[in-house]
């Protein structure tokens, strides 16, 4: 198998001391930030971009970013289990049973089934990724501009439909992102758009500025607006004593949910709908439905942790398929990784496999390595991670603001960008209060300009004939899917209702 030989080469690249160090830094930093509510992998990668550019090592940087992503997912599940504060929507399903397990003194088992399940899922799906990407990239070569346009539209619509409390709020968030993407000089004609006479806006709004504003500044301001309701220090549950991580019975109850979660996560991640929210909830629902001891659900059933965590990790490998082969990001983090690629003048897509194949295979090999490192780091160091959760909130968020300002300042050296990030942060705080989802805004920012370019390219190729979008079967099929996806919200309403209930319980308890 050709892919196998390429993968072995990839391992050759990764298994150097320097790249191993990058992977280790990635999973450690990722775990740390994943534990902080509201501060996810997208922000971390955005803040590390200036540092990464300075190091000028695309392979090492992407290895580190993949590590950050996996680490952040694991960190997120730790917080969900010990604190019952899921940092992102993909961890909500885990927190339902995970926190109940922790309350009953089974925190260790919950953390272990999450970690091992994530590991199993990541390894299986990375193997799948190895064999799926190259044929997929070959297929993608035949994609035309109109197909890309339709695909980007599909990705945007489906993500918006799935994420968040209501379709209208998701669309509003998406539109905000699309608008930010329009700002700046038009690449084809040099026309300035919505720059309001500010010279530094001509280059458009940098994705780092938007992400720092939406996540870091927005979260800090949000915390500041709710100080009286929050304790100065979070109080996590102590992961109980003893050496036994998983008992024989726990293993027996965990392995099937791991595999089922993996089977759900990978295809859902690979679809343009992307993201981990839907598969994690599907996994939770499925495990609950087929469990023999249904009454244990809600009181700490290990299956309810094992399945969603595996689905969460599996979906990340899935998200890499459209990102690497088509250059289409389907989650906020994938969008930032796309931005990172472009900083290094790499453009993900079918050509990447021809021009940068060693980098791609190194990245895929690093997923294996990163997961081994993660498992080796996390299980023994869990007590240390719990200490991190106990850092007083003022110190933490003041520090995050320092790094946020530094990240924007270092990337542009421009005070307009810094002020813009603060302004977007104010908007993001209001979005949090009014229950608008954040992720669609980032996807709009990244996918909007991509869509416009492909739309205009398609028109140019067709001599301005709009019928190109309905006469090409693939384009038409994708566009019809996008329309269908707008109807999809009626399907997951079931899960969203459940999540809303859960969140009500969370706020009610604290």
């Amino acid at each position, binding site marked *: 198998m050709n892919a196998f030989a390429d993968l072995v080469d990839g391992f050759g690249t990764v298994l150097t001391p320097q790249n191993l160090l990058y992977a280790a830094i990635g999973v450690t930093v990722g775990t740390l930030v994943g534990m902080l509510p509201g501060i996810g992998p997208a922000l971390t990668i955005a803040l590390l971009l200036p540092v990464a550019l300075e190091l000028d090592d695309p392979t090492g940087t992407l290895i580190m970013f993949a590590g950050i992503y996996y680490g952040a997912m694991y960190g997120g599940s730790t917080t969900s289990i010990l604190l019952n504060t899921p940092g992102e929507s993909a961890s909500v399903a885990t927190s339902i049973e995970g926190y109940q397990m922790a309350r009953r003194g089974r925190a260790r088992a919950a953390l272990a089934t999450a970690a091992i399940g994530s590991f199993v899922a990541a390894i299986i799906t990375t193997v799948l990724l190895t064999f799926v990407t190259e044929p997929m990239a070959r297929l993608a070569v035949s994609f035309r501009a109109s197909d890309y346009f339709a695909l980007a539209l599909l990705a945007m619509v489906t993500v918006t439909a799935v994420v968040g409390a209501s379709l209208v709020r998701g669309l509003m968030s998406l539109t905000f992102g699309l608008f930010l993407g329009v700002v700046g000089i038009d690449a084809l004609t040099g026309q300035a758009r919505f720059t309001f006479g500010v010279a530094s806006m001509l280059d458009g709004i940098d994705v780092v500025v938007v992400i720092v504003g939406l996540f870091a500044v927005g979260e800090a301001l949000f915390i500041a607006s709710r100080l009286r309701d929050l304790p100065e220090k979070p109080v996590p549950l102590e992961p109980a004593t003893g050496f036994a991580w998983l008992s024989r019975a726990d293993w027996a109850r965990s392995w099937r949910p791991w595999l089922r979660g993996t089977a759900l996560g990978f295809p859902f991640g690979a679809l343009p709908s992307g993201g981990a929210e839907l598969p994690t909830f599907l996994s939770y629902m499925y495990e609950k439905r087929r469990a023999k001891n249904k009454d244990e659900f809600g009181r700490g059933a290990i299956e309810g942790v094992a399945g969603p965590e595996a689905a969460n990790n599996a979906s990340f490998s899935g998200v890499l398929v459209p990102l690497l082969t088509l250059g289409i990001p389907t989650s906020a983090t994938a969008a930032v990784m796309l931005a990172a690629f472009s900083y290094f003048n790499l453009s993900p897509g079918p050509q990447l496999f021809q021009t940068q194949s060693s980098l791609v295979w190194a990245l895929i090999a690093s997923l294996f390595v990163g997961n081994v490192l993660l498992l080796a780091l996390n299980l023994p160091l869990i007590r240390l991670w719990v200490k991190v959760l106990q850092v007083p909130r003022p110190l933490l968020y003041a520090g995050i603001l*320092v790094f946020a300002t530094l990240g924007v300042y270092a990337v542009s050296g421009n005070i307009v960008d810094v002020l813009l990030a603060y302004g977007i942060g104010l908007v993001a705080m209001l979005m949090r209060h009014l229950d608008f989802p954040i992720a669609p805004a980032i996807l709009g920012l990244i996918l909007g300009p991509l869509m416009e370019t492909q739309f205009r390219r398609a028109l140019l190729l067709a001599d301005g004939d709009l019928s190109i979008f309905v006469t090409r079967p693939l384009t038409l099929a994708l566009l019809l899917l996008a329309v269908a996806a707008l109807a999809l919200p009626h399907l997951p309403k079931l899960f969203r209702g459940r999540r809303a209930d859960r969140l009500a319980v969370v706020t009610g308890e604290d």
Partner: protein
Amino acid sequence: MTEPGRPEASPLAGLAAGVVLVAAGLALFARALVVGADRGVTLGGPTFAPLVVTGLWVVVAGLYLGTQVVAWRRRTPATDDGPRPAWRAPLLLLALLVTYAFVLKYTAVGYVLATLAFYIGAAQLLSTRPFREVIARDAIVGLALSLTVYLAFTKLLGIVLPAGVLPL
């Protein structure tokens, strides 16, 4: 604009947000129209996307306002049990951030001192404990943080940060 109550559940806050969003959308759409009328609108031209995006904004904001009007009509007499956001701390924090950015860019204070002062101020705004209880802790952490960042960025990474008045 927004009521200083509890926006999470307050229909009034949602209503206000809807009005602001529709107004902003109309203003942006009008601007896109003016530019479009000026330069001409073609399907493949640079004025097309702004019209589509701002037009979509107006439509979606209108729909949102509609849902908020419905929520407003169905509101129940206020039950005051949920958390109330306070606007003083976030607004002061925002002002502090802006000051910090200007001091960094336009004064000779330098990165370490400006960051230390900002850190202490931000930590205080984010804290519920009195100033004198936490000042020592905040100052030590802030100094360590700003020095580490400064040295790491300038000496290791070669990214220039303003040195300012300190002999670093």
